């Protein structure tokens, strides 16, 4: 099972939309896919029309006495399941802190799922915390959406810096530009911005699109209601590129570039 995590220190950068749309695309190809909504706000769960409630909450999740499989909900899309969020996940940090090996906890609870799914996409809450550190341990690749602004870039640099202290297995960091608005001068200069980033960036960009914003109204991945739109095709291209990078071990990996 490959584990992707969509992650950003900063909120509102299109992280959840990415997790949901890429999950949809992977499942459509026949990959048995699970999206894990680890963000207490439960946006991914909302997009899939699944109630953001998990019996036992964060406490039993972390203690490891939860049968994760029984909490999984099928989405409306074949081959795509969801592990919903729970509001109690906002205390997940505290719960993790009380375990003996907090940073290994997520990887541990995921183990039984490895047989059932080929791909897991974790939608993380925006913050740097024990939770995100534990996700870094469990994930193979972090997908980091960045809005083409200096502030967003700065948070990416912060992230890269903080990853230096993660002694995890090799973790890929795949940044990509998201919510790119051609009407804004700053956004048109993504190439300049990219040159300031010390790691390779995915070439595909997700444009700013009201169709993506409408995911909340449709409560569905963008492909379900606007499959031919520019936004949908941008996600197609992004997913293809990510797959290639993963297969070929391209991009930046902690502990050295490539693998």
């Amino acid at each position, binding site marked *: 099972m490959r584990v992707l995590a969509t992650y950003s220190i900063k909120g509102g950068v299109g992280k959840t939309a990415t997790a949901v749309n890429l999950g949809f695309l992977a499942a459509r190809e*026949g990959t048995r896919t699970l999206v894990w909504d680890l963000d207490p706000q439960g946006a991914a769960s909302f997009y899939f029309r699944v109630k953001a409630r998990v019996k036992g909450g964060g406490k039993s999740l972390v203690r490891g006495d939860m049968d994760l499989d029984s909490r*999984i*909900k*099928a989405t409306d899309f*074949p081959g795509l*399941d969801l592990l919903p969020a729970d509001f109690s996940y906002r205390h997940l940090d505290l719960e993790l802190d009380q375990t003996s090996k907090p940073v290994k906890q997520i990887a541990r609870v995921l183990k039984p799922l490895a*047989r059932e799914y080929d791909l897991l996409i974790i939608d993380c809450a925006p913050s740097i915390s024990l939770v995100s550190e534990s996700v870094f341990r469990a994930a193979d690749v972090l997908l980091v959406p960045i809005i083409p602004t200096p502030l967003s870039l700065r948070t990416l640099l912060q992230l890269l810096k903080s990853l230096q202290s993660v002694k995890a297995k090799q973790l890929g960091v795949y940044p990509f530009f998201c919510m790119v608005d051609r009407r804004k001068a700053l956004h048109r200069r993504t190439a300049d911005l990219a040159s300031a980033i010390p790691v390779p960036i995915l070439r595909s960009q997700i444009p700013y699109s009201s169709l993506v914003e409408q995911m909340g109204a449709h*409560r569905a991945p963008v492909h379900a209601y606007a499959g031919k739109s520019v936004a949908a095709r941008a996600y197609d291209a992004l997913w293809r590129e990510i797959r290639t990078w993963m297969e070929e071990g391209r991009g930046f990996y902690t502990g050295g570039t490539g693998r």
Partner: protein
Amino acid sequence: MSLFVLEPEISADVVLRGLGEAFVVEPRDQARRRFTYLDTFDWRLQAAGLSLAVSPSGRGVRLLLLSDDGRSQEARAPQTPRFASDLPPGPFRESLESLSSIRRFLPRAHADWREELFALLNEDEKTVVRLLVRRGDASLPGKRQRAPVPVQLHLESLKGYEAEFRKAASLVRKAFGLRPQDRGDLGMILGALGRTPGDYSSTFQIDLDPELRSDEAARSIHRCLLAAMLANQDGMIQDLDPEFLHDFRVAVRRTRSALAQVTGVFPDPVLRHFGEEFRWLGERTGPTRDMDVYLLKIPGYQKALPEGVRDQLDPLVRFLSKKKRKEHGRLLRSMGSKRYARLLDDWGAFLRSPAGPDPGLPNAGRPIRLVASERIWKVYRKVLKRGRRTDRKTSPETLHQLRIDCKKLRYLMTFFQSLYPPEALKPLIKELKNLQDTLGDFNDLYVQRAALLGFAGEMLATGAAPPATLMAMGQLMGQLETRQSVEGDAFRERFQRFAGEKNRRRFRSLFAGAEEGVSAVGPVTAPTELHTAGGHEERTPAGPDASLPSGATPAPTEPERPEATPGAPEGEEGP
């Protein structure tokens, strides 16, 4: 997933309206699909309550595995799998692999479906149950004729929404009195086509009337065995999977055993002629089977070697595959021969001919229950006698002979199992099987070593064996030798158990007494009859069968099936 079949007077619309009281029912999709249903020749999936359907999808195929209890699994593959091992790794493949094993998937039926998909939604407009309405017709592979299949309703349970599924299923059940189908998808389709699944099984099964004249009973047994040969003939010619040839050979061997062991029922010329002809057939099919057996052993060999060395066996695989193709070609020529065609014709004609009022043979007119018990009892005591003479120093040849005696006994018990209470017979068959397995393993290890040495020689002569391959084969031979001494010890233990007082009592109470003069007189440990060498009925038609085939590559012991089928051990019972 739960499958309902609509009665002709209930339309799908009515059911949909009924479900509409608890759910929002939304039409989602319409499609035409052609499904091909797969199963093994011996219906292993059907027996396990599974239906495997393949339909074209994109550049590959979509596979759907439905279990009769309502669960479903889906997978994709680049093409229709021939074997479970062709599937991409994962739970889907694992569900099938343990069942079908080395048997090939064959198309069993085609169905052309018009599918309408509906979503049952909850208050969040989330799909909580899927409903598939299917109409269509079906056909058998290679047949033009089509038959309509009753309209099907499939309710599909979605993970995490089991309660909603139960509600929908009970609505359908209660409101319309529909019952979930337990025949499964394929079972239903075959039903519509007037075909019964499960028409072939490698297990020998015949119900004999205990009072039936023995010559009639023997004919029935032989007819069964002939039918098994004919059933496997095509698959064996096409080499679809190794089991066709294997089952064919088992039927030939059982035929020979029945000819020789069910004594005094057929005239001597018949025994001699068909005994010789079936021996010939066994011989002609042996070399291909031997290659199959070694090819099937390769994964085990690879596992037994250190990881870095495993690839070194590739030349051996190529060598065996090539040899097998050659041998299979020879086999095909034999199967195409006049001799083979005549054998089947004559044998079939003989088995269909009436037995006649008084054939003047000692056992022909006697009830089969007597003859069966006499024969089993006699062969049983022969096994005990020979087994008692074995010790640590007993040669592999002698153990091989004992193994053949065991096999004769096993075949007899299998032929006549319907004459005895199953609860009494089954434990004895099991004990015997255990003993046979151990003997088989022992013999097999011995034979494998000799075979590997033979292969190495042949490969070397043709330059097909790099030194590293020969060394890997040598390593295997060493391991086989170590295991052989362990198996030898296991045999002695098993035999003690088999020959123990409890089993002797069981055998005696079931089989002794039919024969005059033996009836429970004296302990079994003291054989009451002199074992005269060369007693005609004690021999297979081929004559003495004590030693391993000389000269040729020794025949391997074939793996026993998990079920209670008499195994399919080595090639020929005679040299």
